[in-house]
């Protein structure tokens, strides 16, 4: 019975070790602090217990002592703060050349879509040793993508994208939990992340794909007639989308915005929110017309139009994968 009684979570991502190191440091610091208080309380309580005829000594306080036990903890706290901030920066900054997976959460399941086109439900297959970036949104309530073995967690919100990433270090099957309460089957919204050796992963990848996500997006783009206005030259009624992703965009009202996933998403669902300088707010909304999956495909397509985009297979050099290069290839057609 007790063989299944872990006291420490599995450690299966590059981040996990960093989180654990800080955690152990904090265990030591707080352990020492608890011990200090405990020893003092027990020692004082025993040594200065009431004895008939012995009176308490009047002591007012001591400013030097007060300063000492304010400043030293403050110093320790600052060390923890900086250490925690460094780890958090790692957690929140996906590498530029990460493989992308689109995640749609809904009551009460995870839908995962690889850039290469594979679709999964409640299971995510990834290769060991490759950076994987998840671009996530929810169809209903707020959910949270949590993989304890990777020490990552990110809330998944309706109406926008949030991002998380990891690089798995150990093949195996790990829990994927929903960590933000989302209704009746919240605790049933459990999936798994399957980390595979690269060769196995390629074999898994080669089966059952219906074409890359961006190719699917290109189809949606054509079906919805987006190309009538968003022409690949400068003559359209809408801005040219070639090379847009990752660029800074000048808006009509003088603001600037970086063309990231959230900007593209917003421009499809609420085109009037950020109108590009020199254009008129003539685009209709596609709210309720495109599904979350189609939105993801459209975003992937717009990204694929950008040769300068950070995740570009050519620019990424040696870490690029064949699958990714083929996804990239589809734009040329």
């Amino acid at each position, binding site marked *: 019975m007790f063989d299944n*009684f*872990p*006291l*420490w*979570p599995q450690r299966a991502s590059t981040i996990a070790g960093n989180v654990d190191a800080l*955690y152990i440091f*904090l265990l030591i*610091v707080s352990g020492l*602090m*608890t011990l200090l*208080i*405990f020893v*003092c*309380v027990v020692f*004082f309580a025993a040594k*200065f*217990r*009431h004895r008939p005829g012995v*009176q*308490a*000594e*009047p*002591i*007012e*306080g*001591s400013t030097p*002592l*007060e300063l000492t*036990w304010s400043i030293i903890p*403050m110093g320790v*706290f600052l060390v923890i*703060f900086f250490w*925690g*901030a460094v*780890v*958090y920066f790692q*957690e929140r900054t996906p590498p530029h050349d990460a493989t992308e997976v689109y995640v749609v959460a809904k*009551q009460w399941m995870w839908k995962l879509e690889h850039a290469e086109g594979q679709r999964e439900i409640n299971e995510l297959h990834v290769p060991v040793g490759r950076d994987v970036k998840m671009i996530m949104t929810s169809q*209903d*309530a*707020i959910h*949270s993508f*949590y993989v*304890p073995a990777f*020490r*990552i*967690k*990110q809330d998944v*919100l*309706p*109406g926008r994208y949030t991002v998380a990433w990891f690089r798995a270090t150990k093949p195996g099957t790990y829990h994927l*939990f*929903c*960590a933000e*309460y*989302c*209704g009746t089957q*919240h*605790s*049933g919204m459990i999936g798994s992340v399957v980390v595979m050796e690269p060769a196995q992963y390629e074999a898994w990848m080669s089966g059952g794909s219906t074409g890359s996500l961006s190719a699917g997006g290109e189809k949606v783009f054509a079906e919805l007639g987006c190309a009538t206005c968003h022409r690949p030259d400068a003559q359209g009624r809408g801005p040219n989308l070639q090379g847009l992703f990752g660029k800074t965009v000048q808006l009509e009202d003088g603001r600037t915005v970086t063309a990231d996933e959230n900007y593209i998403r917003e421009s499809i669902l609420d085109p009037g929110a950020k109108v590009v300088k020199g254009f008129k707010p003539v685009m209709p909304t596609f709210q309720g017309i495109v599904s979350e999956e189609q939105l993801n495909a459209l975003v992937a397509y717009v990204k694929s139009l950008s040769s300068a985009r950070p995740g570009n297979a050519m620019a990424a050099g040696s870490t690029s994968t064949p699958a990714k290069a083929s996804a990239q290839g589809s734009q040329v057609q």
Partner: protein
Amino acid sequence: MVTASMPTVERENYLNKHYGVGSWLFTTDHKRIALLYLLSITFFFFIGGFFALLIRLELLTPAGDLVQADTYNKLFTMHGMVMVFFFLVPSIPAVLGNFLVPLMIGAKDLAFPKINLLSWYLYIIGGVMMLHCMLTGGVDTGWTFYVPFSTAFSNTKVVEAGLAIFVVGFSSILTGLNFVVTIHRMRAPGMTWSRLPLFIWAHYATSIIQLLGTPVIAITLVLVAAERALHLGIFDPKLGGDPLLFQHLFWFYSHPAVYIMILPSMGIVSEIIACFSRKRIFGYSFVAFSSIAIAVFGFLVWAHHMFVAGISVYAALVFSLLSYLVAVPSAVKVFNWTATMYKGSIHYDAPMLYAFGFLGLFTVGGLTGLFLAALGIDVHVTDTYFIVAHFHYIMVGGAVMGYLGGMHFWWPKISGRLYPEGWAKLAALIVFIGFNLTFFPQFILGYIGMPRRYYQYPPEFQVLNVLSTAGATILGVGYLLPMAYFLWSMRYGKPAPDNPWNAAGLEWKTASPPPTFNFDEEPVVTWEAYNYDELNRLPVKQETPVAR
């Protein structure tokens, strides 16, 4: 005739001056209102505790087998709502604060006695609304009401629960208002700010939070109701709203609310440790101002509940740093309490045992707060059992331990009776052991990754859950015991002397129980707070005359 010949006639006091239901329901005496609150919050404490018991029983096994998933979700929701809004927030201020603030500063009553009674009626109206909500189906949003789940997806009585909390919030605001005005305007001659007991400083700081924070949660809940009932687009992205806006508003109150729960408890611990060490509190002004510092900084750390919610990296950095700043005054308090015992003359009466328990549990609760404020670790442990354990160490280990300590310390003053000391010590021990057994395993559960609010869970989490449930039953016994012997003492307890602990403080210089207007003559204060130095030199007297 007969009574005249008896050697002792029971003195007239606030309990025996009037009899009958009406004399209680229409009283404006702060001491009687405190007892009305005591009865009401105890009732809700045991309702919330019953929900907790069912939660722990469900979690004995990995499968969901005791109740339905929806029922479980309602149980933890209503456990949270009842315990936070109907027990913890009012607990110490509305009971012990109500009873003691006027006594400790030498006033006849609070500044607005009728508003004080109104605040109890608001509490009762809110409480009845909450009971009605629970009995007619309940609510399943979690006590946090997160949108858009609460406004668009939950099929339960969200609006009704929100309105109940809205109403009870005004009870809290009025209590805070009353304390602020009373502490400013009603202090006895000679009772300067630097002579105030630390209990009063703590309540002053708490009142400021109640006044400034509670309106924000009230507005937020109205907005939730408006979006749910009228489909106004405020929080739901489908209606053009922003779900993170809700979280900012919610935590702008609900983080400071933690300090509403813990600051009064800290005030109690300061009183108890000074009394049973027979010493002035170490670093009085540092302890006093740390309460104010906690109240002020407490308003600037709310978004540390949102590190994985989708706020920017830079916002997270600022809120992490500020959270470490608010940890300093809490640490200062713990060091000062410990130092107070140095070269004291320490007595191990029951209230002191609760204070020891508070020190231990609050230290663990506070230190685990350092883990959660560390951004990199928070990502992993937030929304897991780690955070459940952390806030129970603060809000139950800290606040409730302090509350029980205070109840034991002032029970002779409140009831005029002594409780059985041996039972009280035993209860303190049982609560401490039961508490740790319940909640310590949850830290480990959280770090190995068990999310909170899970009705069923993977089997590797079972052993720790069984430990926790076992602890909860012990803890339940520990909480039932004091209720039993306090009730027993009201009839069978020995009459309490005016100052059974030989304690400093004006409340001990009047009768037990006090007369309706607290003091037979208005006291004039000529001594510093915690003048145990002087008291220790006097022979112990059972009947100390009113100071003049």
